[in-house]
């Protein structure tokens, strides 16, 4: 198990999950050319759910969450996010994208803009928020991720952990109802992983719907109310974290868990 000591120990069971459906994926298939990356994915996410997706590399877990805001196009089946179906209608896609925040492995901050400008850009240009209000909102979220004093710096002047927290703040400034995390700590030094995870835990406590691709099993146990294991483009097993880690059913899952926890 990860040696990570997380500051907050919350009981995932206590956090509210509503009956309202946030994301509905049914019969979804995706190919890269002839390669069948995602096979018959069915997944329903309720509002307030915190889902951790894990699996060996190449299992399609990143592709899956990238389909949810259509950074990748699926070819079969349907994905409905907040009642909007993702299809070739660009208006729907833009609507979904402005409602769904995404945090990337390599942060993808805009290097030519200051931290503050990174955070205010989308609210001003997409949501048409007045500039002053956007700045206030950005400072609020930068305080939340504990780096308001870096607001005037450029991304290149910040450490990896700080950059990733800015990336989270940038997404939050759009007031998303769902947050997607694509291996948010994989590119970070061990010293910085914790500060990012603490931010994510805080977000979970506030009831944000989260889908997170990660190998941080400590985080999964502390926060997730469901863990999904993927292999070869399919959902192999899903369960609540305690059951998933202590009593994995499929052989593939057992093999995976023994490899990441075994040493």
């Amino acid at each position, binding site marked *: 198990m990860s040696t990570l000591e997380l500051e907050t120990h919350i009981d995932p069971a206590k956090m509210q999950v509503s009956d309202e459906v946030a994301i509905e994926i049914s019969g979804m298939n995706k190919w890269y050319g002839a390669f069948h990356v995602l096979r018959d994915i069915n997944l329903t996410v309720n509002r307030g759910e915190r889902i951790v997706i894990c699996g060996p590399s190449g299992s399609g877990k990143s592709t899956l969450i990238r389909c949810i805001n259509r950074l990748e196009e699926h070819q079969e089946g349907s994905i409905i996010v907040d009642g909007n179906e993702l299809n070739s209608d660009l208006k729907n896609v833009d609507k979904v994208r402005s409602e769904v925040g995404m945090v*990337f492995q390599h942060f993808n901050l805009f*290097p030519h803009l200051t931290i503050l400008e990174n955070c205010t850009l989308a609210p001003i240009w997409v949501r048409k928020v007045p500039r002053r209000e956007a700045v206030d909102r950005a400072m609020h979220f930068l305080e939340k991720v504990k780096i308001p004093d870096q607001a005037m710096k450029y991304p*290149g*002047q910040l450490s990896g952990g700080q950059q990733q927290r800015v990336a989270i703040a940038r*997404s939050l400034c759009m007031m998303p109802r769902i947050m997607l995390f694509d291996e948010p700590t994989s590119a970070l030094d061990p010293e910085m992983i914790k500060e990012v995870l603490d931010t994510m835990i805080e977000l979970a406590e506030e009831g944000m719907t989260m889908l997170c691709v990660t190998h941080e099993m400590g985080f999964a146990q502390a926060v997730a109310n469901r863990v999904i294991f993927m292999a070869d483009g399919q959902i192999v097993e899903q369960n609540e974290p305690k059951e998933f880690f202590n009593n994995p059913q499929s052989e593939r899952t057992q093999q995976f868990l023994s490899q990441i926890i075994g040493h």
Partner: protein
Amino acid sequence: MSDLSYVRKDMLPEKAPPVSEVGAIGWLRANLFSGWFNSILTVASVYLIYTLVSSILPWLWSPTWSAGSLSECREIVAELGKEHGGACYGVITERWQQLLFGFYPQELRWRPILTFVLLFVALAPVLFTDGVPRKMLWFTGLYLFLAPWLMWGGAIWTPLLVIAGLALGALAFRVLSGVIGALGATIAAIVAPILFWLFLVGPLSSALASIIPLGIEVVESRLFGGFMLSVWIGVVAIAISLVLGVVLALGRQSDLMIVKYLSVGFIEFIRGVPLITLLFVASTLLNIFLPPGTNFDIILRVMIMATLFASAYIAEVVRGGLAALPRGQYEAADALGLDYWKSQRLIILPQALKISIPGIVSTFIGLFKDTTLVSIIGLLDPIGLTGSIRADANWNGIVWELYGFIALLFFLSCFTMSRYSMWLERKLRKGHS
């Protein structure tokens, strides 16, 4: 305690570097005398530079500014008893105005000078975004219409009507976008002003001028010449080719098949043809294709060809910048819900253009120097003028002084562009390598 165990008790303080590493001696040692081979090279280079300078300087130092002909120069030089001869500057004293302005009427030369000075006022908000108020951009926009009017002259109504054409396009877009949709309105907004400019501006302008004759004297294109002509063609082609080049680069990357292949076809065709060919097309062939009687200004035709030529190169340079951006930047912009144009404008192009600055400026410098090719189709740029100057009996046989003067003019302009681009690159380097 085992041999492997070691614990530092106190941390080491910082020490000053040794004297041989810093100061003048350190610099000399590091840069000029870092080994016996480099020392020999240094001494040899110093000797070479001395030989060159000691033979060129006496030639340059030659008090012939008031000489009226080449033979007069030779007399002055012979009187001074110079062994290697001396430069003959009389030709520049006599002809510098012609080399700068061509045959532009003497009493009207304040107009190109004013246009040139205003060029810097118009460029200031574009080139120096920090120190100059943004409101100045209004003047930059106005300058686009003011400059041609100052250069060619004519009724004030012409530039005003051209601006009115733009307003007409905007109006067409606003009115029609509700009726026939955004695409149709966009096409109408482009077509309406062009038709207006082609068919209505001329007659309307003369009609207005006959009622209220407000304007300045017309200067015909055949009087344009000298360095002024090079700058005039160069500046216009540079300004328009940058915009067109960016559009072509985006077009080449577009997902829309027709847009993409039109861009690729244009770029590859133009890059595959020498500029001189395009200039010949402008000077001779276009007349064959145009309806008889149309008088399409030769300078305008050359400007269009130079612009098209440069824009193909700019497009490729910008495409390099676009390709150098990590995919993550596009994805982050998409994920935030920015649409195509907003993400290009706010995220992609600012970074891609920054990467492309050295290539863009190289293209501009190349284009500016290529304007001298217009001498081949009979326009009197500085090179075109040298022919007639050297044909003058007084200056028959002069070479170095004349071409040296022209080279100096071009060098100063190109060196300024080069320094500006380096300054801009330094300014845009924002805490990341």
